[in-house]
């Protein structure tokens, strides 16, 4: 059963720098589906539009970001809601309770000048306005204990926590109201490997407990190999390949995905790894046709002219590549 569905989403940053208009096409015709009880990984290099995509899914569209087309549907208790036709108040009600977002910088979810318990209290209060303060605090404490975090973190200020602990506290906050969808944007990027593992472990545990959808956005394929069920590979604002974690790692079809997988170093194998030639395109001036064609050794005329359709090629496996389609 799906919980969030995106249909042909397009969005761009429209910047007006002293009269010079600049349009950054960050997300182009992305369609995807997040399902109950699965971990969906979005992988891509910096500047490929992955953060923008999850902001669209969450409904966080503020200038200079503009929605240019497409829809986001939520399935809340069997009802289908079109996110961008909801009133702001309704949208606000869905945050934390239906969908929650852990942004790249964990500090931005925690107010630096109030104690952690204050932030927890605010979130609970907004969705359970009639409960008393002590009850709310007790609920927060219980939630932390369930996640294996020391309840004493409630009594300190965010800056007193270490990076890894802060990240785990933010995860606890995001899952406080048992949302059906949790989006974590680069949740482990700045952390050391040992801490990174602890944080991923926690994310996965909570997901298993809630049986909800967890979205992990990262540039690190290793992280996804360990926790994701399905993976979408993003390149220049589009998802160019989507499949189960096994398929992505064992039978990648898109040339970009292949480069990505093949260039990963592995222990016990010192064979030479090749990178893709060239470098990622600018989102301001996208190449014609398939955005990857200037870097693709197999590019044909059609790749330069037409944008490939994102099509189903196998069981749960979708690819946008003319080579795959035409064989």
């Amino acid at each position, binding site marked *: 059963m799906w919980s969030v569905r995106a249909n042909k989403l397009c969005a761009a940053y429209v910047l007006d720098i002293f009269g010079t208009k600049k349009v950054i096409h960050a997300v182009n015709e992305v369609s995807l589906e997040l399902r109950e009880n699965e971990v969906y990984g979005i992988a891509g*290099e910096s500047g490929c539009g992955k953060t923008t995509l999850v902001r669209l899914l969450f409904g966080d569209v503020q200038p200079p970001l503009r929605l240019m087309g497409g829809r986001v549907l939520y399935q809340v208790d069997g009802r289908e809601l079109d996110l961008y036709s909801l009133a702001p108040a309704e949208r606000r009600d869905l945050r934390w309770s239906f969908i929650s977002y852990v942004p790249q910088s964990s500090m931005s979810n925690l107010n630096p000048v109030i104690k952690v318990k204050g932030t927890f209290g605010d979130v609970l209060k907004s969705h359970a306005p009639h409960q008393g303060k002590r009850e709310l605090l007790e609920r927060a404490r219980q939630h932390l204990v369930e996640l294996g975090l020391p309840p004493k973190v409630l009594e300190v200020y965010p800056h007193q926590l270490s990076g890894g602990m802060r990240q785990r506290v933010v995860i606890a906050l995001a899952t406080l109201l048992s949302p059906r969808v949790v989006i974590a944007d680069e949740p482990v990027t700045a952390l050391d490997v040992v801490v990174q593992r602890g944080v991923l472990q926690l994310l996965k545990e909570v997901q298993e407990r809630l049986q909800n959808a967890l979205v992990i956005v990262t540039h690190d394929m290793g992280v996804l190999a360990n926790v994701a069920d399905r993976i979408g590979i993003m390149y220049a604002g589009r998802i160019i390949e989507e499949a189960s974690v096994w398929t992505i790692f064992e039978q990648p079809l898109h040339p970009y995905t292949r480069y990505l997988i093949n260039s990963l170093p*592995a222990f016990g194998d010192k064979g030479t790894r090749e990178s893709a030639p060239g470098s990622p395109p600018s989102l301001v001036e996208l190449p014609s046709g398939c955005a990857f064609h200037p870097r693709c050794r197999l590019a044909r005329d059609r790749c330069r002219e037409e944008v490939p359709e994102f099509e189903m090629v196998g069981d749960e496996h979708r690819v946008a590549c003319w080579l795959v389609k035409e064989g």
Partner: protein
Amino acid sequence: MRDVSKIFHMGSMLSRIRITAVEHVSFRVGPGEIFGLAGESGCGKTTLARMILGFEEPTSGTIALRGRDGQPIVGRRAWRRAGVQAVFQNPFETFNPLRQVERYFFETVQNYGLAGNRAEALERIERALQMVGLSYEAIAGRYPAEFSGGQLQRASIARALLSEPSLLIADEPVSMVDASIRMSIMNLFRDLVDRLGVSVVYITHDLATAYYVCDRIAIMFRGNIVAMGNVDKVLMEPKHPYVRLLMECVPQTDPKKRWRAKVQLSASETEEYLRAGCKFAGRCPHAMDICKQEVPEEIYFEGQMAKCHLLRVSQGVQ
């Protein structure tokens, strides 16, 4: 004959709050070798690099450096000309965004008196750029923002090579580079070492790339080297419990090798820095009483060294 070798011996680096960032670290990098320096953030690897580069003075201990001709290098200028150069993490930060990239090339040549006139300078710059797969034409008149990350990192490496140093310090040189071109930079380092006989100290927290490119590796933990040796031995047959923990936590890029067991996380960094005895004792699953009191000695195995009391017990005194 280019016998390059560097002998480092460093003592306690005491900062004002008396945290020993680097503690009695000794190692040696041979000519034409890629030496990995790996560890978590705040383990002292960057302080160590800054000391080798001469940006910071060691509190005690000495750092010695030999040129490509095998002669010891003395003096500040020579240290940076024939001695050691660096490649930094973020190529867009390596060059001033308001200045043309080529200016750094000409300045390096001029400041170290590497060429008599402009034609010679150009030739020298062209040669360095060719080595990294660029050309002078590709960088002439351009500002950093006009490059891609990968190109700019190559330019940064070329600049470091201009003065023909015997050692390159590469501090996380690929972590800011796009994943799809990361490996080409790693391959470039390997290639340069093979062709020029330059040595590289590769500083990273990424054990997978370290494994890929390094010959030897040292694992640092809270200012100490806890294990060192041949990269295959240190990483694939880890002896020190900390290295074992690290290896377990590195996400393997293969869904078949998913994590199963759980890990324990550390309390506070400063606490571990101040700990007497083995700094890892607080988190070590095998910690014994002695670990909390005495600093472990170096124990040598075939192709690697580890500092751990546990190994001493299991191996017998060496």
